């Protein structure tokens, strides 16, 4: 089964916490109030896909761990 690699670009993140609210336990804010994944490599999870698609600054990337291709956010 494929796995997803979740990353947040901390320079783009504005700390809106939309991802933290959408996918509890999957994202957390650091001391600078910038988001990051709780676990970087995960089983595919629709809530994480929702969070990535809802980010107001498109700071979240989801990549297929096997192929390195971006995961479709739709």
């Amino acid at each position, binding site marked *: 089964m494929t796995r997803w690699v979740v990353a947040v670009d901390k320079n783009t993140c504005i700390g809106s916490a939309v991802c933290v*609210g*959408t996918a509890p336990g999957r994202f957390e804010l650091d001391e600078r109030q910038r988001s990051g994944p709780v676990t970087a490599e995960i089983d595919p999870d629709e809530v994480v896909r*929702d969070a990535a698609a*809802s*980010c*107001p*600054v*498109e700071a979240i990337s989801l990549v297929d761990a096997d192929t390195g291709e971006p995961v479709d956010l739709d």
Partner: protein
Amino acid sequence: MTVDESPIKYPSAAGPWPEFRAVLRDHPVLRAEMPDGSIAWLVSGHAELRQMLADQRFSRARAVAPGRARQGTEVFAAGSINGLDPPEHTRIRRLVASAFTARRVEAMRPRVASIVGELIDGLLGQPQPADFIACFSLPLPVQVICEMLGIPAEDMEQFHAWSDKALGDWRQDSDEIITSLADMYGYFGRLIEAKRAQPADDLMTALIAARDEADRLSEEELTILGCTLLIGGHETTANQINLSLLLLLDHPAEIDKLRADPALIPGAVEELLRYVRIGGGIPPARITTEDVALGGVTIPAGEVVLPLFGTANRDPSAFSDPDRFDVSRVAANHLSFGAGVHHCLGAQLARLELQEAFRGLLARVPGIGLAVPSAELEFKPGMAVHSLRELPIRWGEP
């Protein structure tokens, strides 16, 4: 603190606010008795507020459930994205999130700058004094959101009347508010039919496709979403522009800094968002779905929790010397757009409109100033945002 202690009284509109805010500084989460006698937990610490807003255990849907909503905005919120919890909220928000990302909004900058330019041309052609709201701060966001949604410009004035009512005083004018909302829903129903017959390159057409081709939202959800985007997109922005102008006029040295170096404007917009208290009345409530620990206290399940955005934006642990207005400070961590799933969908668009508005005004309207003493300015009663009736201004020769 234990729940047995008697709660502090939340002040009425008349105050005393300075004393109350001094108490809140020592109590980032505090149990209070509201003016109507109900009990609520106030969250005013900056870190505690962001944490609360990002936590699904503080439910908006429960707070606006039938029988609970008291203000017009909360009654409207009950049917809208603003009153939903995940996963229903996520389904609707995903449909519109991509239209409001920083990247998509940035592409609108030239058009927004051009609308600003046209409005300033119109303003400068008016006899003095002129009403800044009618000439500039209201038509700017209304025109932007109408173009985005695909709403004909000739209908703009009608919406403003409806939106004004929907944000108004629910206890006083509930019949008028219900009538206005019904009229607005009716209008959107007809607009949706018109767009079905004649699709265009706009957001309403895209949402209709999401309904008709992919069945991702109901007809009612589609109608309410259109109304929400329209209402959310203008009264707040217009009054943020108004109150920002008033604040800047009170700080001429800060205006001089911005005129000397317009590259400071984006940072100044964040400071204006941090400093201006835009919210009026009781803020959008949450209700705990279970016992939750926050800021050193435990809030029991089923309690009302209120976010105090303006106070969190003056939390000294987040902003040094927080009561000082300083356009060169780093203020972007303010909570004026909220946080978590209800973080303002239009935040990036509001930022861009504010930036272009002040870039244009500072460059092209020299000597802009109030035409009446600020004590004579009147706010509309009962509004969910601090909303001025009129803002008469004068200016010098360009």
